[in-house]
């Protein structure tokens, strides 16, 4: 079947555009609020900065129901296996956003118990710098993620499951 569709790239491109439009406008964040950045993440979801305009107001508590893993805060060595397990529990397609300097590279804590960057345990799509990033900064990161999603090819992953790992 995939051979037949390869002869119709126009259809695939249109399907891609439709699917990515739906995905990027209805991301359901899994708010893994670990530390200070979590408060700014909640402020982004609150009334003034209103993440609901982007379709992301539905913060899910369970990873099984979410598709965007926002790692907001310091990841310690004790918490790292938990983060990995939560990431693996999330169903495909999923994206992740490292919010704040601690999630990007350990932040101001070069210590014995802090993981120097969450990208050591999960793949990260967008890095939002700041300590903590302001709500405007987080929204900017989310919009960059939306652009990244718009450039992806979900039909390729549907038709060829192995391509998922090369995203």
């Amino acid at each position, binding site marked *: 079947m995939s051979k037949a569709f390869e002869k119709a790239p126009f259809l695939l491109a249109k399907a891609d555009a439709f699917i990515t439009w739906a995905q990027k406008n209805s991301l359901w964040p899994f708010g893994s609020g670990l*530390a200070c950045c979590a408060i700014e993440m*909640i402020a982004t979801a609150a009334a003034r900065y209103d993440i609901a305009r982007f379709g992301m107001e539905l913060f899910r*508590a369970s990873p099984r129901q979410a598709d965007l893993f926002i790692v907001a805060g310091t990841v*310690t060595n*004790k918490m790292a296996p938990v983060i990995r397990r939560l990431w693996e529990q999330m169903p495909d397609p999923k994206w992740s956003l490292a919010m704040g300097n601690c999630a990007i590279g350990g932040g*101001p*804590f070069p210590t*014995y118990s802090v993981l120097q960057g969450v990208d050591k345990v999960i793949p990260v799509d967008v890095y939002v710098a700041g300590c*903590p990033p302001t709500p405007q900064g987080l929204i900017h990161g989310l919009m960059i993620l939306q652009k990244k999603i718009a450039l992806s090819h979900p039909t390729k992953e549907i038709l060829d499951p192995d391509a998922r790992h090369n995203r």
Partner: protein
Amino acid sequence: MAFKEIDLNMGPQHPSTHGVLRLKLAVDNEVVLRVEPVLGYLHRGMEKLWENLTYTQVVPLTDRLDYLASLSNNLGYVLAVENLAGIEVPKRAQYIRVVLAELQRQASHLAWLGFMANDIGAMSILLYGFEAREDILDIFEEYCGARLTVHGIRIGGVVHDLDAALVPRIRTVLKAIPKRLRDIRALLDENRIWKGRTVGVGLITAGDAVGYGLTGPALRASGVAWDMRKDIPYSSYGDFAFDVPLGENGDVYDRYLVRLEEICQSIRIVGQALDGLPSGEFSSKVPRTLKIPPGEVFHTIEAPKGVLGFYVKSNGTDKPERVKMKSPSFINLQSLEHMCKGNLFSDVVGILGSLDIVLGEIDK
């Protein structure tokens, strides 16, 4: 029903544990038998890190302890260092510190209110509380550029002078907050569901509370009048007239009422501080590399969560020998098991919310 003990794990990833806290519950059908908190999921090694930084470099890291009340942490640490080094803080700086610390107390209590109400199910209060908090964070942003990890109180004074243009804006915010509180109280105070979930839940008597080392609004809700701002006034708190609200029963509902009343008293304090703001310097001259001769001091303040203490030991160099933080949430959390025993396990969330803990402070 036959007795059957079930072990439940709550956290470390859970929407209502206020951070990465893990609770191991043992329940009999729905009644809680044992609660064992497991900590350390946010242990960042702050105390070890502080031994490798200068006294001035430690101040921004204290922001990250109780991240809902950064200025209080700053104040606790700098007061200890100033005590140790013998640095005199100008009167104007002390008044500005009071204004900042009390605004921070209001912001912290509003955030607590939003989280606790959200945990119990009243989701709109989260949005109301955060909207009220945004007004205060706007003031902080205009004062020094940061909303959350403010670092506005430095060794010797404060970071900037209080601009004459900022004072009327603060007064406007102070007038707006009681209106929002009236809205929130109209929704919650006499609400049958709210009272059903909070009255008589999580009881702790005054004697037990003192025995567990509880401090802050959770202790005052049991009727014990301990407030560091009154017991050992620091930073000119003795100049201001305010009441310390006390509860009677020591349940979740009383802790809720005590914190709401504290916001109103805090507004009184800020008004008085702005009215009587003296002229003068906003900071005393502190050398760039602050070297403190050997000595030790333990200093406490009344942070929004309880009594926050810093023990600082100096050894003559520009780096502290040891800085230990006495964390109010760490000690308050020890009484969680006592409060939860005998209650339904769905009350654990409400009781944990009423304790007002912050994991950054507990795990350091």
